[in-house]
């Protein structure tokens, strides 16, 4: 699937909840609760992306021209967002990742989590994902 297709899939998934933000957040929390997305051995300090409050760990690997992300976060909502980002961006080419607009965050009504004034590490994570992709290209 292309990045846009995955985004579309996520949008449809969230559309089911309509305006019920509580249900949306419950879903996000469930996503966050799914197994750790990163190997314990990768949860090292040099892989931490510091947000003001919640910490995010990111590992990026290139295999045969395709980037693989694994990640984790210590706050569960951030982790849910991280899970979405990994789902969207992982297993694509560097160029696809760098070009991704990630409009879905806006559409599913979680835009606030991408605001640079938000006290989490998510914005930095996306920047890091793109930077890593760029460095592979």
């Amino acid at each position, binding site marked *: 699937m292309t990045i846009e297709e995955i985004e579309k899939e996520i949008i449809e998934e969230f559309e089911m909840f309509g305006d019920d933000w*509580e249900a949306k957040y419950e879903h996000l*929390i469930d996503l966050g609760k799914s197994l750790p997305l990163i190997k314990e051995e990768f949860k090292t300090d040099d892989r931490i992306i510091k947000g003001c*409050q919640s910490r995010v760990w990111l590992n990026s690997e290139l295999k045969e021209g395709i980037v693989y992300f694994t990640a984790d976060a210590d706050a569960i*909502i951030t982790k849910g967002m991280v899970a979405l980002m990994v789902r969207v961006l992982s297993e694509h080419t560097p160029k696809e990742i760098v070009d991704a607009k990630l409009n879905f965050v806006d559409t599913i009504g979680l835009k606030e989590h991408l605001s640079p004034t938000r006290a989490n590490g998510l914005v930095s994570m996306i920047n890091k994902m793109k930077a890593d992709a760029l460095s592979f290209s």
Partner: protein
Amino acid sequence: MKELKNIRDQFPILNQKINGYDLVYFDNGATSQKPLSVIESISDYYKQSNANIHRGVHTLSRTATGLFEKARKTLASHFNVKNDQQIIFTAGTTDSINLVVNGLSKNYLKKGDEIILSSYEHHSNILPWQLWAEENGGKLKVIPLLEDQSLDLSKLESLISSKTKLIAIAHVSNTLGVITDLEKVNSIARKNNIAVLVDGAQSAPHMAVDLTKLNVDFFVCSAHKMYGPTGIGLLYLSEKWLKDLPVSKPGGGTINTVTFEKTEYAENALRFEPGTPHIAGSVGFSAAIDFMNAVGIQTIFDHEHQLVQYAQQKMSEIPEVIIYGKSEHKAGVISFNIKNNHPFDVGTLLDKYGIAVRTGHHCTQPLMQCLNIQGTIRISFAIYNTKEEVDFFIEKLKKVITMLC
């Protein structure tokens, strides 16, 4: 006391919806909201009286100077300080502390000297001392916590050595709400001839502070936490330090005479207020003090105390809640966590219900290290908060816990 309904009407910001819910503002420890009287005192100042102060011969400048000096008098009388020149206007608590550290490091603090802090100090009352210590071979010592997260003052005397020059201590912990027994701290300090700086950022908004009675060397606080404007705070100097504290931040207005070779500084408060002061801020600060006194400081304290008791009671009935700072002796702050959850998640979801709380380390990372946690969720009250808001908060907190757990 004015009726609470009436008081809330004076805070236009409270009358708004966040995510469709009525705003519940429980982040007063970070900054309080401002009553109309304060907001209007500032607009009126700019619309009617704005001018630069001191030395001005024209009418507006005299008016503005008069307002600024009246604000100083208002603060002096509020804190029961006889000589209003002991009240210095600064940019806030952090600025005040830096001014003291920089002044003291000129003569008073020497290589090898020691400063005592408490375990629950705010970064603003740690970092300036730490920087001094690093650069001058000084040392910081820390008063430990008791089981109930109040200070173990029985250890204070054993921390004191012949090198101890100053105790810098919060009047009220911003994270825990615990009130420091300043009388005890001060009597030990006096006995050992040690200066005391009190960080009143979290006491001045909530309780009566009598600086003549307290009899410490330095007291600092910020207007923005006291229903007043941003960008202005206070530094109180004892009579001795008003004379003895060296100027460390000079500039226009601080002087009697200047040549390129040599400067003679002014004798009074002006020597510590370089450049154009925050005149509008002083006017707003003064209006905030008037507001607090119109309501009554004791009324504010009692009201917040009741809210804390009530909320703490309700919260302790929720099994997942861990409350920090269980001392009876505390001001309007509750810090807590939800077992196995990150404070950030709780704060994010509460915000969805329009409830503004603070989460994280509250600029007290060393305290977090003592408690061995990453952060807490903090609710902190002001005079305009209500029992109904606490009820709503409790209801939604329970909901959030089911969502997260």
